[in-house]
């Protein structure tokens, strides 16, 4: 199995789907010769050219709407929003059109589009270029929202997302782009609505997604010598949530921590925590803990940023609180 960058895995998925289905087109800013702000579409321009890669003006709401209109007429557009923060400018088409058309037109249309966007902080990008806005999207009925954490996941799931007949917001992560992982050589796909137990354990369930999954894996290794065995469950799909996998893990360990890069208030962690309280109360042996970003804009200074974003130490503190409680 070759080991490739997360960004390359996205690139390969796009490449393979462009080659597989003529209805797939890429739409976005600077995705052509330049290769995208993070180099994700590098090489695709030379291979597919202007007929398949549509470079746009800086008009996020309209390019999202173009994706919606084209999808309704049988295409499979993949729209790139350069930074997840800019999704604010595309939200009308996402919220009032893409997500609702299939339902409100009573099944007459489908909207098979993917909106790819990198969320999260890369270090020093500041308040308007660092946000993980997952919680903004999961409350919109009709949108699928996924946030893969590895090269293996991101390649297999992007291919599935492009083939899905529904609008999918595909959250990538700037911090993950330069991380390497193994991917199979064959043409594979992964389900986009299933959580993955990335590392089984017995003591505490740790639910995470996107950039927080590798951090949680590292915490697991660090705590092993102390005799604490974490079970790392990557949520992958934030809407819908894979309840069965979440509940099975909590019923096994009796303890849960949810870790995310998004702000704590109203986050995916709050939703998972509520679901556990509603469905697994009898299994719980300790309070459900959440770790997330502070309810603060993300400061530009690298020194200040770390106080706002969740760190490995915050996860360890949550583990200790649970241990002290039991």
């Amino acid at each position: 199995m070759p080991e490739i960058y997360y960004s390359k895995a996205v690139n390969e998925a796009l490449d393979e789907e462009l080659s597989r289905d003529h209805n797939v087109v890429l739409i976005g800013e600077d995705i052509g010769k330049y290769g995208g702000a993070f180099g994700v579409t590098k090489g695709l321009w030379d291979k597919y050219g202007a007929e398949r890669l549509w470079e746009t003006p800086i008009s996020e709401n309209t390019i999202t709407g173009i994706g919606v209109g084209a999808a309704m007429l049988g295409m499979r557009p993949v729209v790139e929003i350069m930074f997840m923060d800019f999704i604010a400018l595309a939200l009308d088409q996402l919220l009032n059109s893409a997500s609702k058309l299939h339902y409100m037109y009573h099944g007459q249309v489908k909207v098979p589009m993917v909106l790819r966007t990198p969320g999260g902080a890369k270090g020093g990008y500041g308040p308007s270029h660092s946000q993980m806005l997952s919680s903004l999207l999961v409350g919109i009925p009709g949108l699928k929202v996924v946030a893969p954490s590895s090269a293996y996941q991101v390649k297999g799931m992007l291919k599935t997302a492009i083939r899905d007949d529904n609008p999918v917001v595909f959250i990538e992560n700037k911090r993950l782009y330069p991380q390497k992982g193994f991917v199979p050589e064959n043409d594979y796909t992964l389900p986009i609505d299933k959580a993955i137990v990335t590392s089984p354990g017995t003591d505490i369930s740790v639910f995470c997604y996107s950039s927080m999954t590798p951090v949680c894996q590292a915490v697991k290794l660090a705590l092993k010598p102390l005799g604490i065995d974490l079970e790392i469950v990557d949520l992958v799909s934030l809407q819908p949530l894979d309840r069965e996998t979440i509940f099975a893990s909590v019923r096994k360990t009796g303890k849960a921590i949810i870790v995310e890069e998004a702000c704590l208030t109203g986050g995916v962690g709050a939703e998972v925590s509520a679901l556990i309280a509603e469905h697994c109360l009898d299994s719980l042996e300790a309070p459900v803990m959440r770790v997330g970003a502070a309810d603060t804009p993300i400061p530009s200074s690298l020194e200040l940023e770390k106080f706002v974003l969740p760190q490995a130490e915050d996860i360890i503190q949550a583990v200790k609180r649970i241990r002290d409680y039991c």
Partner: protein
Amino acid sequence: MLTNDQLLHFYGRMVTIRAFEEKLSELFTTGLLGGTSHFCIGQEASAVGVVGASRATDWLVSNHRGHGHLLARGLDVSRVMAELLGRLTGYCGGRGGSQHLCSYSEHFLGTNGIVGGGLPIATGAAFALKYQKSSDIAIVFFGDGASNQGTFHESLNLAQLWQLPVLFVCENNFYGMSTPISKTIARADGASFEVPSGTSGVTGWVTPRAAAYGIRGTTADGRDVEAVYAAAEAAIGRIRAGGGPELLELMTYRLCGHSKSEPRVYRTREEEETMREHDGLAMLPARLAERGVPGETIEATAAAARAAVEEATQRALAAPYGGRADALGGVFEEMRQ
């Protein structure tokens, strides 16, 4: 140039639209309709003239004031009424209502509840048509108010850059809800606000904006169905021939409030009376008669249209509502593996 038969057909469609809107207004007073509705009384000619110049496979995208557009396309009156009444037999099973009504098989891609929301969707449809090398085009209706949304400017810019087959149709009725265009549309020449009391000499307010994007813009009297048809037919012909996007601004006037029964405090009754004298529907019987169409044929056409609306309404009123499963299912398209 329209034949007598065509003009008579257009007249019938316009009467259908007027009768439909008046029936809706009546139903609101009985409490049978929920929410709100935006009537297009006075604006029938712009819808019928443009849609009449399109072909049945051209894709239409409409806005919040969309009943005229969809009835002009020939959607089933009873199923439209049923949709507005929230019944299961409506085009969208009662899920969409007035502002979210679609008939995909009739290439009516939907009314739209967000001002300016349809412009990118139509641009996207045009993108797909170009990509698929189709000879169909996309036509999007919007109001003067929508020309102040970012989507208007973004869509025109993109459509011109990509040379997309789309006709942008602005129905300028001089008011965005209550606010006159003189307060909302900045213009270079300082022209003053003037409702089109005559039938000629109309000044475009949105057309100059098209020029900024290198898009050909045409201004026409939107109350005159023949003038609308002529302008639309010419524009559609050029677009279909690969000439790129165009904008058509149709100066019109709604002879009713913005929605339901609002009291229209923002304009005078005198202005409305003046405009009523130039009602595009009322002027048609005389014009048809001048062309030699017998009076009884004109009257019979109007009577048949009104009777059809009444009959369709009664059928819609007798239709069932959906149940819990109709409200909760179908959020996602099931994948066919």
